[in-house]
Structures are given as structure tokens and as C-alpha cells.
């Protein structure tokens, strides 16, 4: 039961990360492979604040604000660079973030990471076991998915789709495209902050590899498999791909093979979807 619940929790956390990436890549067309870095900033923020005694809720709020700000700043080059060039820029952002996580040892614990991150507690409720934590992660996913749904339904959501399709036409209509992009980057960053914060307090251990380029690519893969631009795609993708290592764990594989096997399966799934179903399971083509 715990095995299944921990799968659900992880899938929910990555659904929130996928929704964050979906806003940038699927909705407004900023192709970023740095979302794991933003998630990592959220995770380290929550971990460090909670370890110095700040309550979970306040730490999470701080992570949300910080990640929103960082995501806006790291997305700014995309306002000037055309799509393909921004991928390179975001790749750089991801590498810089990982380098900071590894080398700022006094703060992040370096390569060995941070451990014994306290349990999440809100108003006397402690989310210690998977059974308890799944309530918290489900609540957060419902809140994030709900806000995503409201965003997409609103005039603002329609404007974001319009900007992706023809930015010049949106400007010619008198829209403040820069402001709209900053807004969506902030919301996307806030989502990533929530995902990172939940991850840190649930796993209770984080290190630089938890948020490296592989994780960013994994989130993009989730989006491709689930289907970009849609709400359901951002949830289906993570649930399917998080199931892969859980299923592999059931097969009797030598532990040295587990990691490479997982990457191999992810790669095969990504290629298969690109070839046979580029729009993903429940979405549209990126």
C-alpha cells in the first residue's frame, strides 16, 4: 500500500512540475529545459528554511515567491531570442543552477546534499507517513490544476494561446505581450516552487542530482507523452512515467542496471511517442 501511495505522491509532485513546464512550453511557447532547476530552488528553499525552524507553510510560500521571481528572470532572454535559441539559454540556466547546488557547499551541502529535512506540519497536522502526505500532495495538485484550468479559461489564457500563435498580431491588437509573458513565467515558477517544496519535505533528502538536466528532460518527456497544452496531459504523462521505475523495481534486476534501464525505457518511450503520436495521449503537438 505504501509502495503505491509513494508512487501516487511522486506522480502528483511531478504533475505539478509538468503543469509548470506546460505553461511555458505548451501554452506560450517558451521552450525551456530548466524547470528542474527552478524546482530545485524551491526544494532547497523549503529545506533550508524548515531546517532553521521556519514552519512548512511559510517556507513553501517563500519558495513560491522566490521561484516565481527566478523563473521570470531566467525566462527574460526568451523575450528577445527566437524559440530554438532559448533552448540553449535555458540549458545554460540548468547547468548554472546545478553548479551552484554542487559548489555552494556552505548553503546546499554540496554534492552530498541536505538530509533530515523536517516533516511538513500545518496547524498541528503532521504529514509523516505516505498515507498522510498523499492528502497534502493531492490537495496541492488540485489547487494547481484548478488554477491552471481557471487560467486557461480566462481571457488571459486565450491571450497566451494567441501570443504563441502570432506574437506580432497580439502586439498589433494593443496587447502588452511582455507583461503577459512575465505573468505566465511567474505562475509557472510558482508551480515549480510548490513541486520542489513538496519533494524536499516528502523525500526528506535532496541533492544536486535530484534537480539536474535529466530531471528537466524527464519533465519535458512527461509533457510529450501526456500531451502538451492540456491539463489532463500534464497529469497522465507523470503518472505513466513515474510508474516506469516502480515497475522496473518489481523485476529482479541487478541494482547497477536499474538506473541505465530506467533511462533506456524513458528514451524508448520518448522516441516512440515522437514517431507515432507526437500530440501525446491527451494533447497537441508541441
Amino acid at each position, binding site marked *: 500500500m505504501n509502495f503505491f501511495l509513494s508512487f501516487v505522491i511522486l506522480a502528483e509532485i511531478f504533475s505539478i512540475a509538468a503543469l509548470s513546464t506546460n505553461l511555458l512550453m505548451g501554452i506560450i511557447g517558451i521552450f525551456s529545459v530548466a524547470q528542474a532547476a527552478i524546482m530545485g530552488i524551491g526544494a532547497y528553499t523549503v529545506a533550508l528554511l524548515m531546517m532553521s525552524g521556519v514552519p512548512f507553510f511559510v517556507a513553501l510560500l517563500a519558495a513560491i515567491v522566490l521561484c516565481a521571481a527566478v523563473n521570470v528572470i531566467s525566462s527574460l532572454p526568451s523575450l528577445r531570442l527566437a524559440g530554438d535559441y532559448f533552448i540553449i539559454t535555458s540549458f545554460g540556466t540548468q547547468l548554472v543552477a546545478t553548479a551552484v547546488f554542487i559548489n555552494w557547499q556552505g548553503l546546499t551541502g554540496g554534492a552530498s546534499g541536505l538530509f533530515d529535512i523536517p516533516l511538513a506540519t500545518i496547524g498541528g497536522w503532521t504529514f509523516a507517513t505516505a498515507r498522510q502526505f498523499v492528502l497534502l500532495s493531492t490537495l496541492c495538485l488540485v489547487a494547481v490544476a484548478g488554477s491552471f484550468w481557471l487560467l486557461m479559461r480566462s*481571457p488571459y489564457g486565450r491571450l497566451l*494561446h494567441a501570443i504563441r500563435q502570432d506574437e506580432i498580431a497580439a502586439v498589433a491588437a494593443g496587447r502588452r505581450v511582455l507583461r503577459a509573458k512575465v505573468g505566465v513565467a511567474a505562475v509557472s515558477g510558482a508551480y515549480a516552487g510548490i513541486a520542489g517544496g513538496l519533494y524536499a519535505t516528502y523525500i526528506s533528502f535532496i541533492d544536486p542530482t535530484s534537480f539536474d538536466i535529466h530531471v528537466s528532460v524527464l519533465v519535458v518527456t512527461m509533457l510529450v507523452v501526456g500531451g502538451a497544452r492540456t491539463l489532463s496531459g500534464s497529469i497522465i504523462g507523470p503518472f505513466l512515467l513515474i510508474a516506469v521505475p516502480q515497475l522496473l523495481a518489481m523485476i529482479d534486476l541487478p541494482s547497477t542496471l536499474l538506473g541505465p534501464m530506467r533511462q533506456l525505457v524513458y528514451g524508448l518511450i520518448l522516441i516512440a511517442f515522437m514517431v507515432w503520436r507526437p500530440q501525446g495521449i491527451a494533447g497537441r503537438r508541441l
Partner: protein
Amino acid sequence: MTYLAVSHVTKTFGGLVALDDCSFVIAPGRISCVVGPNGAGKTSIFNVVTGFIKADTGTVVFKDKDVTSLSRHDRVRLGIARTFQNLRLFEELSALDNVLVCLADEAGNGPLAAMFRPFHTEAVLKRKKAEAAALLDEVGLGHKIEVPAASLSYGQKKLLCIARVLATRAELILLDEPTSGLAAGALDAMVTMIHTLKARGRTLLVVEHNTRIVQRIADDVLFFHRGRLLAQGSPDEITSNEELGRIYFGRGDEH
């Protein structure tokens, strides 16, 4: 009052002179057609007036306000809006959303209200949908509200462009080749539409190639050639000018 005054505008792209010391004044409530051979600078003058390119020298004054250094979206807010020769519709969005996105009303265009004031935003959305639907009705696309722009016929797409530019509430409207590529029926509908816009008090600047259409819609004609404004006058004055006719049609080049 000066309604629209373009003064001494020059624009070069590398060695190519797109606009060469162009000056003209447009009076409100009139339809002015911009004509001239390919490469005359017609679209460039549109781009300068709407802020899509910055002139090297010269000024653009709209309603006594110098708008030369204003951003594109600020000019739209002041009341200058345009269409594009290549339409630039939001192809995946419905006709309704194409218009809705262009409405002058800024309400509901931010993320915070959408997420934290959902009922208010829903009311804004409802109001905007009604407004956009009314505009689609006006241009004769009331029956195509839910259709994605990509699925409309070419004539309908051009009418959708008109609905979009109307949504901005701009009073000076620049139409870049609104009748090009239209079959006879759609062409007549567009000409009627242009007359309707004028009747509603809009001022229009129209790039138009077809001299017969120019005769049907223009109050004034601005004739451009090689980046220079060669003549400005009534359609009859311009068409009876043999020199301009020779430039435009290559007429009389034989001797």
C-alpha cells in the same frame, strides 16, 4: 487640429531607401488609398505610422500628439490599428477568440484575477464574448463564431481581420491590401464593409492595387514611387495624371 501628419520620414534598409523624405497629412473621416508599384514604400509607411518600424528621421503626429517614439501597443491604445497583408490570424483559435483577444478592454488580461477572482473573471469573459460576438455579427461572421480561424474561407478570414481591428476600438484604421485575392462576391462585401467603417466615423488608410477599387472607395489617393510620395489628390486627379499612369502601368514607355 492635425489628425495624422507624417513629416519628413526617411527609412533605409542597408543601401535600400524604403522611404525618402515623405510628408503628408490625413484628414479625419476620410478613406485614403495608398497606391504605387511594388517596392514603392506602401507597407513601409504603414509600418512607420503603426510603429512596426522606426523611421531614421521624421515624425508621426496623431491628433496633435507626437507618437514617433511610442510603442506599438501604446499607439493602438491611442487609436491607430492595422491589419496585415498576410492576415496574421490566430489560426488555432476560434473566430470568437480571435476577436476577444483584440478587445480594447484590458479586464481579465492578467493571471492574478483569473486565478483568485474566478467569478469576477467569468463575468468579464461573458461580457467579452458577447462583445466579440456582436463584432462578428457586424462583419457577417455571426454564424462562424466557434469555427477555428484556420477553417474559414479566405474571404471570411479577411472579414475576421476587420472584426479584430474593430475590436481595438481604433479610430484610424490601416488596411493592408484588404481586397487582394478576393473573388467578386467577397470583394463587394469588403468594399461595402470599408464604406460602413467610414460611415461609422472611422478614418481609413488603405493599401490598394486595383485602380477600380480605388475609384470606388477613395476620397484621397497617395501615390508612392521608390519611397517618395509623388502625388496626393482625389482619385480623378491621380488617374488622369499621365506621368503617374506611366509609372504605375508602364504605359507609354515604348516611345
